[in-house]
């Protein structure tokens, strides 16, 4: 048994389908919804911990993708835009896990280590240059 955190992004026409119920019924998966939102543009996001055999998880993901849902097992809702980042370092003392950190002490360039991010969203208001954002906000 494996537990995977998956991010489902529903385009407007896909939001009506009960994808989660099918994952439970037809793919033997346990789902634990961790965060959910529907935007005013009627797009939706779901972050779900999915538990099941690797094979069932893979089949379930393929099924959802077949419905036009974007499924991501890597990306977090938090996105860090390298282009907008000035490397000022203001986020550093506000990021509890060190996901945003200095990549090179000589130039003080910043990197974002996605695996470490717990999506506390602290960095968003603490980035003066709008480099951090989350699909769960706006």
């Amino acid at each position, binding site marked *: 048994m494996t537990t995977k955190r998956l991010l489902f992004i529903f385009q407007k026409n896909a939001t009506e389908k009960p994808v989660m119920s099918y994952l439970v019924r037809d793919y033997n998966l346990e789902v634990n919804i961790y965060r959910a939102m529907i935007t005013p543009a009627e797009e939706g996001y779901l972050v779900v911990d999915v538990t099941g055999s690797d094979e069932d998880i893979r089949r379930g993901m393929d099924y959802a993708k077949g419905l036009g849902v974007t499924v991501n097992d890597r990306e977090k809702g938090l996105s860090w835009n390298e282009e907008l980042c000035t490397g000022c*370092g*203001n986020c*550093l*003392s506000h990021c509890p896990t060190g996901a945003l950190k200095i990549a090179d002490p000589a130039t003080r360039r910043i990197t974002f280590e996605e695996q470490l991010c717990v999506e506390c969203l602290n960095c968003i208001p*603490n980035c*003066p*240059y709008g480099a951090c954002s989350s699909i769960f906000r706006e």
Partner: protein
Amino acid sequence: MKTYEEINSRIESGKAVVLTADEIIAYVDKHGLDEAAEEVDVVTTATFGPMCSSGAFLNFGHSKPKMRITEAWIDDVLAYSGIAAVDLYLGATQLRHNDPANMYYPGEFRFGGGHVIEKLIAGKECQLFALSYGTDDYPLRELRTTFSIQDLNQAIMVNPRNCYQNYNVAVNCSDKPVYTYLGLLEPNMGNITYCSAGQLSPLLNDPFYETIGVGSAVWLAGARGIVYAEGTQHAPTCERNDLGIPTEGAGTLALSADMKQMSSAFVRGVSLKGYGVSLALGIAVPIPVLNKEILRRTTVRDKDITAPVINYGGDYQARNGKVLGHISYADLKNNSVRFMGKDIRVSSMSSYGKALEAAELLKDEIRRGDFHLSRPSAPLPKEQAMRGITMKEPAR
């Protein structure tokens, strides 16, 4: 000993030896001061960070029929129009009209004068809305149009105060979060923030203003600019360490340059939660190696520069002059610093990476012969303190 003329003729012939203030440290360590003073012509210094006292003079040209603008907004940000008919001054910290500011505390301050300036330099279209009472010779009373920087006759950045020589380090000793221009300060000294390029910063490499003066050529966000005056609040009479490095704010520069020559990578709008908006600029200043002592002062290291730690949870507001202690930039550049018996995580408002980029770009321009130095027409004041305002009525 070298003169400005000798250095400029070496720049002219493409032979000038130029190093950044970061590189010069190791270079002098290796070659010694005497040899380095012979070899090196120019040291480039730089900084990148929010510089609130900045803004832009914009000339729009005349409409048909003509208008003498008396109120104006660019992308809904108020611009000052108490100048001539179609000249405006847009300040970096002006909020957008209807921004709720701190009404829903802490406010987000997403857009203001600094962001408009960033958009202009990035070549984007902005909206002008202007009103007037109308006169016989300027009858038009309302105007709404879009424009980009190319449409303007002039777009000149004029910044009354940039490049603070040194700056406060902020902590919060109170038990509530404090939102400041140095970022969010967590209660009970939960974090600490600073804002300086340290050993790369222009006035820390020329602590007695021997080469940087009124009329010096500077690199302002990619454009060739000048120091047009001492910056506001220039206060060179202050505490200094054994090397003469100020251990508090001290000197400042007033800078100006043509915005049409600027690069958007070094002009960025700033949003500071709970505080307001501002503008971050990348600035590089060349220091001519006129003699050994000038060179020696450019080899200053982060460990030799300290900044005063101020409690923004009370002392700063009260202006009681209390300094909790001093920390060196070498220590501040770690993830956490030990202060008053506590390990405190560090944040910074100043980008050393961007400052290094600016210093490198100026270095390349000088090496290519595209940027010449200019001898100041007048020195910056060396003795002068900063006054506060006298309140003739009780505080409310």
